[in-house]
């Protein structure tokens, strides 16, 4: 904490300096100035080194490998084999195809996700639909289902021959109607599980909208439809655009769904292409790095655009003054809206969970007719119990909880330290710290994982292969989310509150502990919860970093699926969801208790 205080010991100035020039007052002044500057920037340097190891070094190594003939290994990193050879892979038909697929899939799924999210948000925030709380719950619930699990469930549901939906259609004589291993299938699954991001952002913008603006339009003679078109939607355009671009970036870099749904259908995207290059024997790391560079550049362009759009959001007349937005009477459309929400809920949650249940309960691994599912002894809890007792599962569950709790706590602490430096101090270089901290937003998790692999291979500390490297990786990729949450919260606490404690005789560190942190409690807790969820769900960043001793639940599910052990994958997935729910409930009630205990 000492770096937080602006304490300046008297009289230690001169001794701390390397070489104060003797004589002239000008020289002395310069030395003193230099010493002061150095001490002032110490926290920045410390943080910069931390961020460099966390973020800049992995990115640098990716870039370096893309132009090198060998991948970084301990003691084998030099500028020897600089080459452009690796980029030849980009001209191959496969990679051109992968790039095209990525763009098509990301565009289509983000448009679809936006439509779903915006419609649900409008219904929940601004209309007189029945059961608004239920609609809200439907809007966010898919967040609790990792896209990896969603993809698994949909391959169980709509796999071309044995999918449960096809069993049903076959049973009624329609034949196999569904094939999820296709472009539309991939787009659908991504859209289903990324719609909540659109929902949350747009719902926020719609509830915070100043009702005066719409009432003014109404007073001046606008009809409902006209108001919606000319006032309401234009006002939330920044939120719409912002979430659209965010989802585009997220679906573009998504690996689990692309791998589990796309790969069986021979649809390759850039992330799966990187994965395949790394898994080739021998691994083609340099070419993977070249593809990673292209994917990252694409995402940086998209994210930069999104940042600009989000900046514009400040100019909209959305303010949080506890006013009640107008509820619009949509009359008979209420039924349509409710049906729409329920269909979405069925597709995103109900059907997938049923599929997972069936898959983990069915006693024979293959079911070719619907009837077989209803025969005696065809369903049993044997597999679920088996999984529960499986030491590999228990070990992975332990790892997952350990990693996500550590990431949540340490990541929030780091984010706090960083936000404090940026918003509460005048240390030089704080804006560049912020820039570096936000970079992972534009780096695909799978690429970050690759960079971190090489980073911790060559760093002379025994971290690679331990669970620590997973914690470090997750903290790095989720630093932007943590930083944003904490910054928003620190900005809401007036700086005077802390300064007054210092004036009244407390040290800076004590003032932070006595005033600032307690007032930020809600924001800190929700950031911890967010990081906990994100870390619990993460697969891509861990792909190249885990070892047989540090498998996470996501890895177990992915491996089982890869090895065709669908039943085991399904039972693990169910327990995985359960653990996520328990963690969220525990964290929330813990938060509620401690904020009640405060006073």
């Amino acid at each position, binding site marked *: 904490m000492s770096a937080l*205080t*602006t*304490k*300046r010991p*008297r009289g230690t*100035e001169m001794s701390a300096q390397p070489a104060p020039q003797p004589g002239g007052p000008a020289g002395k002044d310069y030395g*003193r100035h230099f010493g*002061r500057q150095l001490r002032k920037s110490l926290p920045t340097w410390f943080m910069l080194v931390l961020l460099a190891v966390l973020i800049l070094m992995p990115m640098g190594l990716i870039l370096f490998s893309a132009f090198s003939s060998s991948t970084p290994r301990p003691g084998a990193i030099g500028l020897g084999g600089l080459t452009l050879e690796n980029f030849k892979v980009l001209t191959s038909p496969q990679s051109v195809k992968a790039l095209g697929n990525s763009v098509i899939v990301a565009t289509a799924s983000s448009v679809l996700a936006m439509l779903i999210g915006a419609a649900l948000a409008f219904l929940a925030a601004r209309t007189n639909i029945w059961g608004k709380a239920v609609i809200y719950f439907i809007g966010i619930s898919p967040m609790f289902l990792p896209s990896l699990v969603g993809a698994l469930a949909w391959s169980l549901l709509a796999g071309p021959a044995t999918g449960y939906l096809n069993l049903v259609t076959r049973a009624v004589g329609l034949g196999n109607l569904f094939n999820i291993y296709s472009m539309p299938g991939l787009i659908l699954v991504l859209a289903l599980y990324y719609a909540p991001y659109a929902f949350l952002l747009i719902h926020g913008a719609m509830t915070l909208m100043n009702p005066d603006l719409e009432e003014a339009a109404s007073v001046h003679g606008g009809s409902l439809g006209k108001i919606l078109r000319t006032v309401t939607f234009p006002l939330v355009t920044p939120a719409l655009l912002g979430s659209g671009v965010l989802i585009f970036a997220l679906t573009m870099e998504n690996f689990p769904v692309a791998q589990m749904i796309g790969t069986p259908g021979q649809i390759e995207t850039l992330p799966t292409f990187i994965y395949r290059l790394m898994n080739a024997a021998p691994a083609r790391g340099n070419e993977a790095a070249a593809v990673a560079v292209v994917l990252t550049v694409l995402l940086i362009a998209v994210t930069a655009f999104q940042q600009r759009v989000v900046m514009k959001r400040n100019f909209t007349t959305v303010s949080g003054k506890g006013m009640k937005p107008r509820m619009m009477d949509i009359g008979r459309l209420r039924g349509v809206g409710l049906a729409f929400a329920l269909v979405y809920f069925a597709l995103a949650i109900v059907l997938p969970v049923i599929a997972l249940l069936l898959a983990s309960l069915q006693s024979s691994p293959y079911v070719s007719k619907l009837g077989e599912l209803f025969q005696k002894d065809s369903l049993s809890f044997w597999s679920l119990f088996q999984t529960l007792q499986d030491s590999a599962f228990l070990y992975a569950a332990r790892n997952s909880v350990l990693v996500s709790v550590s990431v949540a706590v340490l990541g929030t602490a780091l984010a706090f330290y960083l936000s404090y430096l940026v918003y509460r101090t005048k240390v030089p270089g704080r804006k560049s710290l912020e820039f570096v901290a936000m970079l992972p937003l534009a780096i695909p998790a799978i690429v970050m994982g690759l960079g971190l692999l090489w980073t911790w291979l060559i760093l002379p500390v025994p971290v690679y292969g331990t669970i620590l490297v997973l914690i470090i990786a997750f903290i790095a990729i989720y630093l932007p989310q943590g930083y944003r949450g904490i910054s928003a919260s620190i900005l809401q606490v*007036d700086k*005077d*509150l802390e*300064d*007054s*404690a*210092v*004036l*009244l*005789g*407390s*040290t*800076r560190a*004590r003032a932070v502990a*006595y*005033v600032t942190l*307690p*007032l930020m409690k809600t924001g800190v807790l929700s950031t911890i919860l967010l990081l906990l969820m994100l870390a619990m769900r993460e697969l891509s960043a861990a792909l190249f970093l885990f070892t047989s001793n540090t498998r996470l639940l996501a890895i177990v599910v992915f491996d089982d699926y890869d090895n065709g052990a669908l039943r085991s994958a399904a039972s693990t997935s169910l327990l995985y969801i359960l653990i996520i729910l328990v963690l969220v409930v525990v964290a929330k009630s813990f938060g509620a208790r401690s904020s009640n205990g*405060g*006073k």
Partner: protein
Amino acid sequence: MKVTLENIDLKYGDSYAVRGVNAEIEDGQSLVLLGKSGCGKTTTMRCIAGLETPARGRITIGDQVVFDSQKNINVPSHKRNVGMVFQSYAVWPHRTIFENVAFPLQMKKVGKKEITQRVDEALVMVGLDGFQNRGASLLSGGQMQRVALARSLVMRPSVLLLDEPLSNLDARLRDRLRIELRALQQKLNLTCVYVTHDQGEALALGDRIALMQHGRLAQVGTPNDIYENPASATIADFLGVSNIFPVHKNGHPGVYRLADHRLELSTAEYSLDGNAIAACIRPEDVIVTTQRAAGDANSWSGKVKVASYQGAEVRYLIELDDGPSIEALVSRRDCPAAGTGDQVWVNASPSDIQILPAEVA
């Protein structure tokens, strides 16, 4: 305790927020830093508190040098024993009033019994006795201000800083607290520094007023001094002199011609000449009559554009024939029977017209 500021410079990036400020506040006296927003007054105050670090200069509180850029002294805020009432009050909403006020004593490691006693004393002083166990988030603005004041008083500060202490209160409460604050400061013999942009507040609270413009001290003096003899037209403007007309010297001593109109003013004798000079007439010194007053040097006819009743006074805006609009503040008793559109006569005594430079040199 006596507070001295010597040659304080403070820069944000390349521009000076505070430049060459010198000020002395005698023990038990109050100084008001008065100026528009962005003039550097709050920054100057925060330098005393140690919340801003000047680039250059020296600050002394009592016998202790708390900041000296030459000797590299910078005593941290929490060791300066400076009390401060923030504009936002900065009362901690997650603590009770007692906890808020007891905090500085806890930091000084005062015994529990003495803390209770001194907190009670302080709360009595600000009129909040009996509120000890209330949560601070449920207070009104005026009560918050009192808590903030008690919290600073309880530490027996060497100097008490108050940043716009009354600006967040409604008008009636403001008038009452203004008097209470002044009485408290005089009773406790407190050395105080106020920051305000409200000239009325400054006149009421300060033993002396330091008027700041663009980071510099433009004029320092007693309230009476400053009000009677502003150093420039912009200062006069800031102090509520609403009739300011650019003028040129006419050649005759004591006669000036308006720069933009064909009107002449008789004034006392000034040696000022040049382009950047202005005539300043307080609205309360403008006399409005329905008949021409005989023999007066400055007597013009005009038409009432706006007459606004303000209770004790009526404020007129009168457009002079062939001249500028002039504002007059007339006591209810002396009010002529003239409404909007009526023809009136406007008089100003030569001794009430000040010729001032536009800016302080």
